[in-house]
């Protein structure tokens, strides 16, 4: 029995690992939580806010994580991360495991510990019900009108790779950012898209929401969803494997998959499918009935209309607070750093001025998203770990400081030279003159442009979602994708952004009027 062999080897691995290094398993058990990462934006059936109570999560991976956690004797704790950045979060040590539809690939197996598969997926080609030009896979290979078919995929997914390797000649691949976005793209024929190669479980979960779409041909490109762990956490991986295999044996995994309508015959055949690779050991689950038709107990129903506002509005409001917190903490920091930079540049010794110029040019000349990424993912490499919120604040502050420095420089240079001369000839030191005479005047001058930047910063906080901070925009995408209420929630989100920026505009106007009054009346 392979399962027994696995248990034995897991025990051996446990014993061996105990003798060497710390394993995440010890940390998890000490901490009492199993932290797993996924992206809610990916949506159903994987991980999505529950339609009944959007503060809670649902999805088959959520239930799988609970199952693994209870096997480990701890509680599961969800960590939000952008899908393609989840492996980075794992390397950073922020999470113990990635459970989010990650396919087994040799490259991933080389870099990470990969669990036994918890799901066997296939890819389903989707087309428009009324599109006579796309009825079979041969229509893809040889289009009737000679035009290349435009097929939407989730960028970087297995479907993407499948088309690139097998249909590079005959297909234009169109990258979408989210799975449901791709389906909507086909439905609306966005950008001339003809079809979508979709993960089958996503299609079965969402198909009621897309009545205009139909499956084209048989599923293709079988693959395996596996959990990722750090390579060194061998004991943790062994325990995760045991948990999954146990769940397969006692039928609890099947119950979970059936609940989300993604159980199918393929899952039952898995014992025959799986290769006994090192990190990828198959099971012998004879108890599963290969012919059982899945009975749906959980169906996807889009909550459309304005009802969605009352249900999800509170969550968006909460996310808006995160946006406010990011902006309100980052902006004063940016102004302070910017002021210091402008003083260095204008009044500092040559080398310091040069340093300020280099800083300003580098920061201004590179994208914010890159800076955030470097702060969040590369600093831990040199031993500096920083919480996502503070990484966001720091990134925004650094990015905006370069712009504030230039604004302040203009403000300082606009003060007539006579002001400094008058202050110096009253016996003031240069620094005192700057502090008492020049800066107060320059500050009045820079209020309008700085306020303008403050408003821009409110909107730039959205970029922080790449480093897992869930702020207003990210929260919007999560709920817009899981409910389909793109318009309704979009309006609410826009109103929330306006509610943040408009008072600032008013304040800027007020300060500006007061300032001109001071100068002229």
């Amino acid at each position, binding site marked *: 029995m392979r399962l027994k062999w696995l248990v034995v080897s897991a025990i051996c691995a446990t014993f061996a690992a105990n003798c060497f290094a710390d394993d995440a398993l010890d940390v998890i058990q000490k901490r009492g939580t199993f932290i797993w990462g996924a992206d809610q934006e990916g949506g159903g059936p994987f991980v999505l806010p529950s339609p009944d109570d959007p503060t809670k999560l649902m999805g088959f991976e959520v239930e799988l994580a609970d199952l693994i956690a209870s096997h480990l004797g701890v509680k599961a704790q969800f960590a939000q991360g952008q899908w393609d950045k989840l492996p980075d979060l794992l390397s950073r040590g922020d999470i113990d495991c990635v459970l989010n539809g990650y396919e087994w690939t040799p490259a991933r197996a080389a870099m990470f510990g990969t669990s036994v598969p918890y799901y066997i997926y296939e890819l389903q080609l989707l087309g428009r019900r009324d599109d006579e030009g796309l009825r079979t896979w041969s229509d893809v290979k040889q289009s009737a009108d000679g035009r290349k078919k435009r097929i939407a995929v989730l960028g970087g997914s297995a479907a993407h790779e499948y088309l690139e390797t097998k249909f590079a000649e005959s297909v234009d691949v169109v990258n979408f950012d989210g799975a449901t976005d791709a389906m909507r793209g086909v439905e609306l024929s966005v950008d001339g898209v003809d079809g979508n190669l979709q993960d089958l479980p996503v299609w079965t979960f969402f198909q009621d929401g897309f009545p205009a779409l139909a499956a084209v041909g048989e599923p293709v490109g079988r693959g395996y969803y596996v959990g990722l762990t750090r390579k060194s956490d061998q004991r943790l991986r062994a325990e995760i494997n045991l948990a999954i295999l146990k769940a397969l044996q006692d039928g609890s995994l099947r119950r979970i998959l059936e609940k989300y309508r993604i159980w199918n015959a393929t899952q039952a055949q898995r014992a025959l499918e799986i290769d006994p690779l090192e990190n990828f050991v198959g099971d012998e689950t004879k108890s599963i009935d290969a012919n059982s038709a899945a009975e749906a107990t959980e169906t996807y129903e889009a909550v459309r209309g304005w009802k969605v506002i009352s249900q999800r509005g509170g969550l968006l409001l909460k996310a808006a607070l995160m946006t406010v917190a990011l902006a309100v903490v980052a902006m004063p920091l940016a102004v302070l750093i910017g002021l210091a930079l402008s003083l260095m540049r204008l009044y500092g010794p040559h080398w310091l001025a040069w340093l300020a110029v280099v800083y300003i040019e580098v920061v201004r000349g590179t994208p914010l998203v890159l800076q955030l990424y470097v702060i969040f993912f590369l600093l831990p490499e040199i031993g500096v770990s920083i919480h996502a919120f503070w990484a966001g604040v720091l990134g925004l502050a650094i990015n905006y400081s370069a712009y504030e420095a230039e604004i302040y420089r203009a403000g300082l240079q606009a003060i007539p030279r006579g002001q400094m001369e008058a202050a110096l000839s*009253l*016996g003031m030191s240069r620094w*005192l003159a700057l502090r008492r005479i020049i800066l107060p*005047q320059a500050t009045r001058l820079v209020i309008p442009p700085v306020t303008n930047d403050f408003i821009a910063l409110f909107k730039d906080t959205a970029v922080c979602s790449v480093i897992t901070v869930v702020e207003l925009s990210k929260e919007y995408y999560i709920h817009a994708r899981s409910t389909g209420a793109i318009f309704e929630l979009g309006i609410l989100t826009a109103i929330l952004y306006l509610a943040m920026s408009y008072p600032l505009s008013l304040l800027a106007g007020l300060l500006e009027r007061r300032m001109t009054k001071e100068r002229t009346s």
Partner: protein
Amino acid sequence: MIELHNIRKSFGEIEILRGIRLSIRKGEVCVLLGPSGSGKSTLLRTINGLETFDEGHIIVDGTSLGPISDPTREIALATIRRRVGMVFQQYNLFPHQSALENVMEAPIHVLKQPRAEAIENAKQLLDRVGLGDKIHSRPAQLSGGQQQRVAIARTLAMNPAAILFDEPTSALDPRMTAEVISVMADLAASGQTMIVVTHAMGFARSVAHTVHILHQGQIAESGPPKQIFESPTHPATIELLAQTA
């Protein structure tokens, strides 16, 4: 009180001060006259270090100030600037402060005077220049003449050993010029040491003790105003007086 020894300064190829020697006694009112470009403003500004010079040295109230190459310049300037005030053509009042705040700024932050004492002094000085009723006005609310009188009060608040005036009435119309000249005459009468760069011949004639004529970066002629105005000897003086007469 103030001595200039062989001051030389060039802007690139052009030598703007060509070996100036000058000596001002305590209580002396000294006027520098000369056509524009003769270097008189530059000369005045070397005394409190707003302009550097290349050669020579200046002694102010016992403190020696060296040329630009002298590493002790900054230290000397810190002392000299507390002892020598300056009044500018464009007044250079601090626009974000009231008249009173302009006057008390340096006493509080440079001399560390107690606030109450600084306010009392500032009020008296503004009263002395005839602006007792304008103490809370901002510079933008005052006329040019009023602003220049606040600037004089601001300088006086530091109790300077000498005051440098850099064309203090050039930006003013005749009526406002008269206001400012009258304040300056009062100052002179009280024994204040003053060096004045001006085109106001009336002031030079009636208030100055000594008049120096600058011509092409050199002092062409010096003497009491009576001698300079009534029997000039240097061609540059004669030409200058002919232009302004």
